């Protein structure tokens, strides 16, 4: 009986695969222009490097991987931008040590002082480096600030467990001020800040008007299984459709390679839509979570970084909601 069911699950999911194959867009391979940083475990050196994407616009790239001590738990792309009136820092990384090394890197790269930090969402590697930026204003949306306050303790515990020594001395230092969507002017730079929902309850996107470089935070994952601890798939799909891709010359996702064009947006959309559609169908067919965990996932997704652990997390985060909807049925709201 059990075996038959799994067999059935396999066949159903295979049929779904075919459907996806027909819809999938041909996608050029994404060129990673930079390699993962060279990490020195013995000295806890992240090996951070600043890469200029445009005049005064820098990305500091992490590994496109999962949190492990081997990569220093540095899987995020942070950034900084000179303005003529000081440096704007975008996200501060996973630890105190990262924050310090990022600040030192900025000092090596430009003579301008750091004048502001911006957090694009509430996730731990967006703000656990804040101790190194205690002397500058740190901005996030009100929703993100509330979320960080709620989750900070469990983030610290979890990253200490996963990353060990890299986290030494790290304590969460929360943002100091609120910021909303709209134009943001610092020195000679004009930025556009846009707020969306879907990856989290508040996802900021920063576009540098003059260069067109866009820091899209967690809304776009490039060649990496999206993370979903605070995700709302349908809202996320709407946000991806609303992103002004045409205005972005280069897209800096928080996870995965920097790229031009809509490839990352399309990848994220394909994955989130696939999950939404299949989780709905599987829940309506009475599938158990263990069947969903073992369901065949399209090959193109399985080649991305973060597979398979991130899919296990996706199922844990999201499938119970689809189940609830299916079990409550049409009668009860």
């Amino acid at each position, binding site marked *: *009986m*059990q075996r*038959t*069911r799994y067999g*059935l699950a396999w066949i*159903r999911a295979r049929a779904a695969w075919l459907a996806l194959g027909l819809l999938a867009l041909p996608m050029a391979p994404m060129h990673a222009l930079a390699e993962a940083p060279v990490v020195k475990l013995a000295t806890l050196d992240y090996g951070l490097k600043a890469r200029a994407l445009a005049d005064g616009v820098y990305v500091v790239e992490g590994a496109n991987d999962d949190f492990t001590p081997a990569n220093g738990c540095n899987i995020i792309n942070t950034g900084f931008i000179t303005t003529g009136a000081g440096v704007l820092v975008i996200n501060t990384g996973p630890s105190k040590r990262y924050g310090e090394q990022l600040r030192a890197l900025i000092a090596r790269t430009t003579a301008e002082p750091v004048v502001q930090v911006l957090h694009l969402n509430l996730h731990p590697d967006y703000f656990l480096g804040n101790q190194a930026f205690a002397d500058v204003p740190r901005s996030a949306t009100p929703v993100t600030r509330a979320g960080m306050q709620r989750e900070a303790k469990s983030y610290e515990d*979890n990253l200490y*467990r996963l990353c060990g020594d890299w986290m030494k001395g790290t304590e969460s230092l929360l943002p100091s001020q609120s910021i909303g969507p709209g134009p943001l002017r610092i020195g000679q730079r004009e930025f556009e800040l846009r707020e969306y929902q879907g990856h989290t309850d508040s996802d900021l996107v920063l576009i540098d008007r003059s260069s067109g470089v866009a820091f899209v935070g967690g809304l776009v994952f490039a060649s990496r299984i999206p993370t979903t601890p605070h995700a709302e798939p349908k809202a996320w799909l709407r946000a991806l459709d609303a992103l002004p891709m045409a205005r972005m010359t280069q897209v800096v996702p928080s996870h995965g390679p920097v790229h031009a064009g809509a490839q990352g947006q399309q990848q994220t959309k394909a994955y989130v839509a696939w999950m939404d559609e299949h989780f709905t169908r599987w829940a309506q*067919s*009475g599938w*158990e*979570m*263990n*069947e969903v*965990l*073992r369901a065949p996932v399209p090959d193109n997704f399985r080649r991305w970084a973060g597979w398979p*652990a991130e899919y*296990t*997390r996706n*199922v*844990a*985060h999201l499938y*119970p909601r689809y*189940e*609830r909807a*299916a*079990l*409550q*049925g049409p009668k*009860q709201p």
Partner: protein
Amino acid sequence: MNRRALMSWASAAWAAPLWVRDALAAADEFDGDPYKSYQWAELRKEFLGPKPRVVFDARVRVLGPAFAEDPMNVPITIATDLPGVQRMMVLVDRNPIRKVLELQPMAAQPSVSFRFKLEQASPVRALALTADGVWHVGGTWVDSAGGGCTVAGGTRADGSWSQTLGQVSGRLYSAAPGAAEAGARLRLRVMHPMDTGLVNGIPAFHLTRLSVRDAGDRELLRLQTFEPVSENPVLSFEFAKPPPGPLRIVGVDNNGNRIDSKVE
């Protein structure tokens, strides 16, 4: 075959049935436990009584995730093809409360899916008692971030549990067309905080018994649930053919609150 007879058989290992020989061959300090767990001997003593007949048996399948992303809700499916299963028990070696549930399949298949609270990385075992009095033990290993049993549940945190206590939502799924067997699966969600009693200031408060009855009031299966079962339990049961509905779900918690609900 009584226990004395069994023991003398075992001493003549060459003539012993296969499972007895396996048990003898595996007589190490872990009694052949594939997970080499120091808790196993204690578990066996506590839950199976003195001198139980036990065999580690891959035919008792336990499916879980490789790691517990949400240690408050670790999904487990247990199932076996063994005939004549009387009872199935789920034990977790390294949980502070180690018994999760016990199923009497009766007219249902020897299988149940559920979620439970995992305190730390541990073997998760299913023990199936067959008609010959032998416990067949299967398991899986689940890694954990920790903290499942000593963290309060969501409805306890927001206080909403009292408005939904005992509500049941469920559906009976028939196998899709083309399936070799005309089986059926019952999925249930029962609203209950399932407090373990290990969180400071919140006494143990959990469902203790659930049973499923068919339209003719025949009892189809009986389930005992313990503290580690997750908040608002989601359960699946399997049937060889669809039972005549509407099904009635009856149960009780350790405070005497009754569950009585129908699934069409």
